[in-house]
């Protein structure tokens, strides 16, 4: 690489301008404001341009990190975006939501001594620069192959698969159950972390590439997988893992108790925060308790705060270090004043005469910290019960697979918990011509891994429709793929 080695490396990441915590805790505007060109070039200067870039091994889709960073350093942002897009179609999304500390940045050589290079922030910067250049360039698509592919679900996995297939000249139709496309990116992740305009733009791009998006289409109910197999040359199922889990503790059905999915959907998809201008209501509590410790819990807590809550407490059964949410979000949540009830577990939810929740009873957990041997199972400490006042409780303890498709298509091999069994490399399922990927195969994971699966499936589907798809006959079903 021609980029000169920096003289002295700053041990810290170049700070990113942010809305101050006291302000942002009451608005839905984005928390991080993004690098300027100068700041981006400066941060790019921290990269060592390693011959063996370990960072790339940590990225599930293999973004050519040193190459794009080198272009940023030279302020050739056009080349930078083209480089990223070789591997990642949604850098404006991934730069914002990838858990970089577990992926690319975890493996960065610099991280051994200093802060790693802020790869996520740079990726976001480049994507935002691209968006600021005005109208989107519709990528060239290959000549039509005349092959038709159906995609079920419009989350990051389905969108990516659609993009790749459309580019290869296939005729793609996406079916989405909700009235708006985007999956978790629109109904789950809030505006202050991922502005909806970013997702809308990507969807607009797909439409301009000739992809048809059919909303309000619940596959398994309106159209079955079998019918799709008859009408299309191949199918990709990317329906996510959207089934909310509850804890089965007393009081869970009191009014004011939400699944995180319901709470976030009312607010993000239905815009309950603009009620009554928008018709969908949501309970605006003053004391909120959120149960869980992942991104979903963190998003729920911070959203509740922004709706005007006086106090928001997060109840998590392990310690701060083990919160599975992105590090940056935990940091932001603490800055915004979210109260953390760590090493605690709810045992019951208490309600008043009006059937509305009043408090959550929790118990402290012993052994909640991780020890050398791995994860110990936290145990409740007898007699340590305490109550947290609450008028809204949000349960964010994970999600499972939605069983609708599995119920309507008995020949599709699924696991005990209704996740679809699919080949890791190709997405192939037990049904010929039917592929699957993203959260519906892996269980709740990440945006980038769902995209990676969509991309692998697109490649496999391309091969399949061009080379061996005489319309998939039932008799040609293959023995179920084994999960490796």
């Amino acid at each position, binding site marked *: 690489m021609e980029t000169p080695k920096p003289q002295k490396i700053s041990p810290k990441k170049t700070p990113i301008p942010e809305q101050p915590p006291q302000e942002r805790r009451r608005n839905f505007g984005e928390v991080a404001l993004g690098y300027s060109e100068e700041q981006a070039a400066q941060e790019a200067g921290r990269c060592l341009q390693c011959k063996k870039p370990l960072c790339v091994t940590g990225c599930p889709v293999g973004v050519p990190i040193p190459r794009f960073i080198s272009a940023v350093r030279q302020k050739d942002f056009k080349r930078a975006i083209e480089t990223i897009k070789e591997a990642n179609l949604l850098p404006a999304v991934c730069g914002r939501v990838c858990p970089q500390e577990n992926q690319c940045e975890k493996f960065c050589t610099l991280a051994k001594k200093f802060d790693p290079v802020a790869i996520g922030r740079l990726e976001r910067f480049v994507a935002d620069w691209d968006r600021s250049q005005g109208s989107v360039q519709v990528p060239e698509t290959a000549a039509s192959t005349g092959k038709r592919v159906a995609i079920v679900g419009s989350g990051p996995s389905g969108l990516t698969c659609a993009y790749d297939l459309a580019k290869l000249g296939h005729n793609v139709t996406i079916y989405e*159950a*909700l*009235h708006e496309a985007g999956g978790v990116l629109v*109904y789950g992740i809030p505006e202050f972390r991922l502005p909806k305009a970013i997702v809308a733009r990507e969807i607009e791009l797909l439409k301009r590439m000739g992809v048809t998006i059919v*909303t*309000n*289409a*619940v596959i398994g*109910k*309106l*159209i079955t997988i079998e019918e799709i197999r008859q009408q299309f040359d191949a199918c990709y199922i990317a329906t996510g893992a*959207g*089934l*909310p889990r*509850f804890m*089965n503790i007393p009081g*869970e*059905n*009191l*009014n*004011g108790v*939400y*699944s995180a*999915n*319901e709470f976030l*959907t*009312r607010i993000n998809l*239905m*815009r309950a925060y603009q*009620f*009554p*201008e*928008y*018709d*969908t*209501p949501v*309970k605006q509590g003053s004391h909120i308790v959120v149960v869980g410790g992942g991104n979903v819990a963190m998003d729920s807590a911070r959203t509740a705060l922004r709706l005007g809550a006086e106090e928001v407490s997060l109840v998590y059964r392990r310690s701060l270090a083990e919160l599975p949410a992105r590090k940056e979000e935990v940091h932001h949540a603490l800055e915004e004043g979210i109260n953390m009830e760590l090493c605690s577990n709810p045992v019951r939810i208490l309600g008043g005469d009006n*059937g509305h929740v009043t408090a959550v009873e929790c118990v402290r957990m012993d052994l909640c910290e991780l020890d050398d041997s791995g994860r110990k199972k936290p145990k409740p400490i007898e007699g340590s019960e305490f109550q947290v006042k609450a008028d809204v409780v949000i349960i964010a303890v994970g999600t499972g697979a*939605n*069983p*609708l498709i599995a119920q309507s298509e008995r020949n599709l091999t699924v696991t005990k918990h209704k996740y679809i069994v699919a080949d890791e490399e190709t997405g192939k399922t037990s049904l010929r011509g039917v592929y699957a990927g993203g959260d519906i195969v892996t269980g709740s994971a990440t945006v980038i891994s769902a995209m990676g699966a969509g991309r692998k499936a697109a490649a496999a589907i391309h091969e399949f429709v061009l080379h061996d798809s005489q319309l998939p006959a039932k008799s040609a079903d293959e023995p179920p793929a084994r999960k490796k």
Partner: protein
Amino acid sequence: MALIKEKRLLRAPDVFYFRIEAPLISKKARPGQFVIVRLHDKGERIPLSLADIDADGGTISLIVMAVGKTTAEFTAMQPGQDVLDLCGPLGNPTEIEKAGKVVLVGGGFGTAPLYPIAKAFKNAGSEVVTVMGARSKDLLIYEKEMLSVCDRVLVATDDGSKGIKGLVTNALKAELEQAPADLVIAIGPVVMMRAVAETTRPLGTKTVVSLNPIMVDGTGMCGGCRVTVGGETRFACTDGPEFDGHLVDWDVLMNRQRKYIPEQKHSFEQWKTKHAGVVCE
């Protein structure tokens, strides 16, 4: 977008019949299922039961009772206008089998979704008796339609203006005492379904009820429609809407339906001041 093809006033002032273009849904829909509509881009998603299915004509029918903002807005719409989003068919169909004698119990708009169910049981060769109730005879809906597909229709009114004077459960009890039924299906207000379940419990008659908790997505994603049945949490939109009436925890359901009353009032009052002259209860 789904085109409204036909609209009729069914019961003054607030219950309307709509026939809506839905070629795909009408091919798939079965009695007992429902759809979710969103009228415009600021609208709420609300569930409505299928009151008729015409696969050949490519339409479905809905009965809408104006009880709040969204339903009032719907009933103010006219043929030729479009409903922005129409999603379905959702929920599980009624299990239709030749069942000897089936008694259908309808209250409020609940009689309407019983109509396709009655037709299906009749076609399957069952004896179908409908018991329908209202406060007075002017408030009955779908009586003519039910007469056209059932063996018998019994009416109960609170004021005795038609049929027997009393509650549907009185009429149901009398009917069951005369000749037991193999299956009872009740659709209507929660208090009515609960009373039906209590009436049949001592007789041990299999009783199916169609639960109507508040919903958002209707696809099993939000858990807002959860109900307690047989001590377990079930989602009405994907596990139901029909459940064994003897196993439903009615208190939980009634409490959850009241969840948004202040917000709903607020939004409806605002709408009404802007649309003076529209009649609703």
